[in-house]
């Protein structure tokens, strides 16, 4: 991969939460204009990785560059400018609870553009239409279901037509129909607007069906990367275990802990 086509470049990333090394020398390239899926067991730090890319967390060492700009060396104002070019769908949706669905989607347009009101209205309605929630525009976020919340949040994160969009678990809590629509939408957005998409998901079949590249993160490192076909053929036991969802294998299902027999034997110490 040449640096020309790399949009996000992560080199030797080390990040700690307290004593725990979430990332330990992780390196990853995300190509421009493609859909890259990041998969991995729950709790490996996928959300953390997205926050690092967005500059909300600072790495211990290593570097993260987005479009050639080193994210964690930026000054605050430059960082905010860079973020205007990114959209991020939060795992929890994170809609503003004091304004309606419509206003939530209109929010980034109102702060960052000087568009007239009728134009904002057109854009908001189009984005809501794309996620199938045009009829829900007057509802408050507290009146939306979990899946609807996420779709509104998606509409909001694409409102400004960003160059990079990061989806944190877009499929969780979606029914099969909505899932299908979202899969379609993500790849359509990518093809028609040429944006770079980073898709974090546990849903292996959905992710592999739309992504151009995929990588699997486990234990702070990338354990497998490549096109979906390459990944399917990857001989690594760990990659295969994850793709096929087998409970036994080298990828731990458990959060790091002492062996259960020892733990149970030492009952009194909690």
């Amino acid at each position, binding site marked *: 991969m040449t640096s020309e086509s790399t949009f996000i470049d992560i080199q030797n990333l080390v990040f700690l939460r307290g004593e725990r090394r979430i990332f330990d020398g992780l390196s990853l390239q995300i190509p421009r204009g493609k859909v890259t899926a990041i998969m991995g067991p729950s709790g490996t730090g996928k959300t953390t990785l997205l*926050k690092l890319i*967005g500059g*909300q967390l600072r790495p211990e060492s290593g570097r993260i560059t987005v479009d050639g700009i080193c994210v964690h060396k930026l000054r*605050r104002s430059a960082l*905010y*400018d*860079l*973020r*205007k070019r*990114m959209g*991020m769908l*939060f795992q*929890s949706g*994170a*809609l*503003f*609870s004091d304004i309606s669905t419509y206003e939530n989607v209109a*929010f*980034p347009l*109102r*702060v*960052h553009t000087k568009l007239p009101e009728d134009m904002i209205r057109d854009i908001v309605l189009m984005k809501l239409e794309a996620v199938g929630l045009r009829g829900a525009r007057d509802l408050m976020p507290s009146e939306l279901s979990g899946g609807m919340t996420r779709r509104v*949040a998606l509409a909001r994160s694409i409102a*400004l037509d960003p160059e990079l969009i990061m989806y944190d678990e877009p499929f969780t809590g979606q029914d099969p129909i909505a899932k299908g629509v979202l899969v379609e939408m993500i790849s359509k957005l990518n093809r028609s607007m040429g944006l770079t998409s980073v898709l974090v998901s546990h849903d292996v079949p959905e992710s592999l069906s739309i992504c151009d590249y995929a990588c699997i993160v486990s234990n702070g490192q990338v354990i497998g990367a490549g096109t979906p076909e390459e990944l399917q053929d990857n001989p690594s036991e760990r990659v295969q275990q994850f793709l096929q969802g087998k409970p036994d294998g080298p990828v731990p299902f458990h959060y790091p802990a002492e062996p259960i027999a020892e733990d149970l034997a030492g009952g009194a110490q909690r």
Partner: protein
Amino acid sequence: MIDRLATIGRGTFDILASLGRSSEFLVRSLIAVPRPATGLPLLVKQIYAVGVLSLAIIVVSGLFIGMVLGLQGYNILTDYGSEQAIGQMVALTLVRELGPVVTALLFAGRAGSALTAEIGLMKATEQLSSMEMMGVDPLRRVIAPRFWAGFITMPLLAMIFSVVGIWGGMLVGVDWLGVFEGSYWANMQSSVDFGEDVLNGVIKSIVFGFVCTWIAVYQGYDSVPTSEGISSATTKTVVYSSLAVLGLDFILTAVMFGDI
């Protein structure tokens, strides 16, 4: 022994660190004034939430405190045969002390706790993070309007409190206990000095408004984003604000009226 020293050291360090963080926070939110076009509606909304919605409690408390002052004042002053001075006593007590102080305490309980809980919940539900990711500084958008709203409304609330209290004192003193109305007002006019009393009272309430709102928004912004974290931040807001108000009141009173 070493353990205890270490605990004290760590405690001191934590306090210093949190003071440092809150000062940095203060400076950043003070300079982060939004553009008037977007900022003004936000400010108005917050003045409504912080000020207008606190009006009821302020008016009712002011009325009762004024009435109690009237009663107690009358009892004490009749012993000296000088119940005409009741207007002066009620007004001075309210304008100099009770107006700013009680308003600030009520404000911390009513508006401060609400500010902390609201901001804490916005943090816990990642609304602040998502705002940052949209390239909008939450300090500018969320914190600054709330800060200024508290800062602006506190002196106004304190004045309303004093006015209602003086009226309550009159209800009791004049209408109930029969003090001559002319002397209630005349004594008040001749003894309450604008610069000395009213202005100092306003300065007090400005200081309290500043401190209470700063504590409230900082506690919300710095809260641990969980339910326990938010509840403890809310408690801290009320406790710290009340202590700060009472302590500062003593200092300010000493400087303003203590002839030192």
